[in-house]
């Protein structure tokens, strides 16, 4: 009974916030509604007893990805009016894409799940995170390795895009040089006479 109430409460919040992501006038607000959608869906997952996935969703998407997203959106000066101009022109394409995604999701729901985990008897005592670890690193170790390689590739590409070592006039700070500076190299002590000699005749 109580579970049903919570389920519907979270679902309503989830659907409304997902709608607001598209409808909100301010881009920062839509990012915030997306955060709310993530948090409520993670609450729903917790109700399904998959605490590891739920907490990872919050940790990775809400705690890291969305913060960077928010960061970028705040920096941009987005003009909503110019972005709305192409609305009617792009509508047919958007509807087509939406239908394709809808059909895909329905197919996922209707067909049998691809991932089948055969739980052995000893696993019943293990916690949720332990079970996921076992499955990922035994049964599905190759897909995990593949996914991590793709991520590594993305990382290397991002570094390669911003690396400026080939430019000759790029300026860098060498921290070890900065730390190793001694006062003798910077300050020169100059002996001066305490007073200027008086000019004659004054």
């Amino acid at each position, binding site marked *: 009974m109580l579970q049903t109430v919570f389920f519907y409460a979270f679902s309503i919040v989830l659907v409304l916030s997902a709608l607001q992501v598209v409808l909100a006038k*301010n881009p*920062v607000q839509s990012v915030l509604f997306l955060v709310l959608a993530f948090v409520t869906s993670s609450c729903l997952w917790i109700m399904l007893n998959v605490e590891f996935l739920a907490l990872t969703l919050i940790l990775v998407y*809400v*705690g*890291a990805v969305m913060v960077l997203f928010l960061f970028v959106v705040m920096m941009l000066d987005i003009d909503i009016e110019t972005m709305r101009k192409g609305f009617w022109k792009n509508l047919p394409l958007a509807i087509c894409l939406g239908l394709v995604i809808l059909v895909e999701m329905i197919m996922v729901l209707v067909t049998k799940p691809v991932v089948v985990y055969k739980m052995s008897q000893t696993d019943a005592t293990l916690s*949720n*995170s332990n079970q996921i670890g076992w499955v990922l690193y035994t049964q599905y170790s190759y897909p995990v390795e593949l996914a991590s390689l793709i991520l590594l590739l993305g990382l290397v590409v991002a570094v390669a895009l911003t690396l400026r070592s080939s430019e000759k006039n790029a300026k860098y700070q060498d*921290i070890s040089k900065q730390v190793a500076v001694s006062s003798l190299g910077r300050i020169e002590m100059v002996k001066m006479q305490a007073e200027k000699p008086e000019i004659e005749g004054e």
Partner: protein
Amino acid sequence: METLQNLLGINLGFFVWKLICVIALVVPLTIFVAYVTLAERKVLGYMHARLGANRVGPKGLLQPFADLLKFIFKELLVPTKASSKIFTISPMIILICALVTWAVVPLSPTLVFTNVNASLLYVVAISSLGVYGIVLAGWAGNSKYSFLGGVRATAQMISYELAMGFALVGVLMVSGTLNLIDIVKYQSVGMLGGSILSWNFIPLFPFFLVYLISGVAETNRAPFDVCEGESEIVAGFFVEYSGTTFALFMLAEYVNMVLVSTLTALMFLGGWLSPFPASWGIIGTANMAYLVLKVCFLLFGFIWYRATFPRYRYDQIMRLGWKVFLPITLVWIFVLGAWMVSPLSIWH
């Protein structure tokens, strides 16, 4: 709890009991935090060779309450053109995230609000939400100073969260569990079981150092407090806040300090375990007092760093997080893995 459930029915009784638990947890915590602020002023004072707050009450002991009263009676100002909703919500986000984390933090093997299996993951997940309060507070104030502070805080917290997470991986590897109570328990067993040598901070010393320093950076405390650097951006992300909302920011900062200290004590310093051999009677048994002592010591450290170190330059902070701590933890994870499978392993 049973009496309440008999009296009010199963669900309502459970709810009322948990509510009582929340109050029993949050009120002492808040009072403790209030006295941490006083301790900071006093300790900083003595380190600067002055007296610190000593006017309100005996030896200044009522000072935190005087501060609170002052904050409450100040006017709440919302700048023009600020997004007023987000402006009022963001201090609440910070404080709620700081307080909600305490739901899974154990104070002794039995004294814990909820004992969940993935409590460590929960703590890390919720504390990563706190950055929203900061970045939104910086943005909503519609001021350049506060925006710069928010941007700095975000970049810094994300950078150090990584190093902190990898330091926790080391702890996870040796204890093999995400449950904070079990993590403490596994520090009392093994080859060196029962002695101070089996606490995680000695075999995992590099992780301990990285976690300790990242904890200071994560709470935006000196010497990592560039996001509120007075000399450049006035007060950083809370420059536009006044009265109670400002007090909420301060409260959240100190609650987070206590939280990070408690987590460090639980994961690396053996939590409630006693540093003395078990044969020494009462001082040799595990006790909550030991946890409180360790937390107080770490909190003193927080104040000590503030009095000792000058503020880091921003590029130095980024360099320390990404180019020093991250490689150190990554290499040590491999070293630790090799150590654990070698015959020299002390975790059997």
